């Protein structure tokens, strides 16, 4: 018979209790946006997959404060198949150490997945951002496992159409442009109800 520690399950967010604050603080990474942390229950999940669903790869600004903070560690910030050129002077002005960036570009969808998985599980990355295109649920599960293994947040930028598809990601957000910034709606959050939303102001 296997003995399972309930507290351990709760702490890791595996056990869903139907009320707030399921993930322990050390499993979360503050986003740097107070309104966002409020709806995320404290911040981004630390060793898990996050999906940002939007019409045109939107959502990068939500992550910039986190990337700036993670750049202080000697770890890679990996961007797999970004849709545009990450503009170095603007990133540097927002406190991101661009020399920590590792860009994987001009790759096929298969290579994109492979690279994201390798980066996630390497233990050498502070965060892995990927723009993967279409994904199967099994592929998502592989990435989720890799994120757990490498203790690394994996952020996937996907189309809103994938909202129909089941996902093992710990967090799923719908992102839309709003007059004052980006509107964020929680579609799924491990250990909590979905439905919360906020507008993150971009100035």
């Amino acid at each position, binding site marked *: 018979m296997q003995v399972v520690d309930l507290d351990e399950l709760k702490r890791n967010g595996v056990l869903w209790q139907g009320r707030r604050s399921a993930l322990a603080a050390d499993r979360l990474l503050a986003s740097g946006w107070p309104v966002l942390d409020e709806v995320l229950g404290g911040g981004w999940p630390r060793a898990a997959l996050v999906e940002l669903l939007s019409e*045109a790869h*939107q*959502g*990068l*600004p939500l992550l*910039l404060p986190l990337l700036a903070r993670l*750049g202080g560690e*000697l*770890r*890679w910030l990996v961007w797999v198949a970004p*849709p*545009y*050129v*990450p*503009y*170095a*002077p*603007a*990133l*540097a*002005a*927002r*406190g*991101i*150490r*661009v*020399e*920590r*960036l*590792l*860009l*994987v*570009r*001009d*790759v096929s969808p298969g*290579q994109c997945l*492979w*690279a994201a998985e*390798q*980066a996630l599980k*390497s*233990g*050498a*990355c502070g965060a892995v951002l990927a723009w993967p295109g279409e994904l199967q649920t099994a592929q998502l599960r592989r990435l989720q496992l890799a994120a757990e293994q490498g203790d690394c947040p994996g952020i996937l930028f996907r189309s809103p159409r994938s909202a129909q598809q089941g996902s093992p990601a710990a967090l799923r957000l719908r992102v*839309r*442009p*709003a*007059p004052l910034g*980006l509107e964020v709606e929680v579609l799924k959050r491990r250990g909590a109800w979905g439905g919360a939303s906020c507008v993150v102001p*971009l100035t």
Partner: protein
Amino acid sequence: MLWLALYFPQLPLEVFARGRQQAGALAIVESLGGREQISRCNAAAQAYGVRPGLALPAALALCAGLVVQRRDRVREQGALDELALWAYQFSARISFEPSLLLLEVGASLRLFGGLPALLTPVQRELGQLGYSVRYALAPTPMAAALLARERSACQVVTPDALREAVAALPLASLTRDADTRGLIRHIGLASIGDVLTLPRPELARRVGPQLSRLMDRLLGLAVDPRPEWQPPQYFAQTIELLGEIGQTTALVFPARRLMVALCGFLRGRGGGAQRLQWTLRHRDHPDTRFGQGLLDPSRDPDHMLEVFRERIDRLQLPAAVVAIGLRVDDWLAFEERSLALFGNPPGPDQALLERLSNRLGGQCVRGLRCLADHRPELAWQLCEPSEFGDAPAASMQQGASQPPWLLPQPRPLAERQGAPEYGGALRLESLPERIEAGWWDGFDIARDYFVAHSSAGERLWVFRDRRSGGWYLHGLFM
């Protein structure tokens, strides 16, 4: 002085078989008295009843699939040369006998911290290289060679122990020279011990000068000068694959053998390799050549192999491979300081970078840096991913009002009555940022950049070319 003799009893077979993890039945033939007969065969052949001394037709009758190779002494000497390259890490004085390598290890014993610390890596790595070995240790090269052939694993250090160790060996084993062997048959002495009991004047009278000279060399009473092997300046070795390999994964096994040899060569020179050049030979097709890059100089075969696996994963073989070769021209010598890094695998950050670059190609895995230029196209650059240093982040205040995404090329925007449109009219925030630069290098720009809001709520970075008056989209804030 102390000599380590490494004798390779299966060398004639192994020069053909070592490229394969599992070689089929293999036999070596030699002509003896005009008759082709088996001189060596491997275990797979022995299982069919093939044995040394058998005539070739009889062997083929026993085992129809027997692969037969004529003994190739040139290739065997080549293998010894390659072994010397590897063995140079253990001794700077190396010489040869047929199927045998002699290393002077008296000086290196102290360096290695005793005999077991020296012999353990020797035996382990010879196994990895694909050679079976018998060894012996003795104060003279001749005694070491003799003992390795006749009494494997014998370790003799003092002259007295040496006399005792060689006494029981047949006298004929002293030499391969036919005349001296004939002489030995006629003097009525069977073993080396018989000779040792004779007083020296009597010995000289009975056996003549040749044999007493051999005895003196054996016991270290006369010098035994031998030509010393000179190490080449670069590493180049090839393994024949005994048949053809059609799948890249089967190349891993012989590749590792080459890497173990390379790393021995590098350790002998206190160096590391950063660029490995591979050549795959095909029967009827030009060679396939490819490079394998390492981010840091290395001499760790396991690390090299991991990178090699990634590299060959994206390799398309145009034809089956019959031989694999490795060449390293530019090994790097290192300071004592960095030697501590060797033997340790690289940190996870380097390992990830290497895995990605070797699988995807270096042009797909890039770093990013800021350049001091006001023109957005020239204010950044893709570069080699940097090593993790403590370089302070460049202060780039110019980017504070600029977007995190840049389009690879400015995209012309439609206009209506001189105002830009992007899925509807754009609303411009009031104050433009003027960028005017580049008259000195031919990429001359004069632009007014605006933050613009689309009707869908997107924040965009657009500019008006002050020369043509046209509007362009150049970046995205979301």
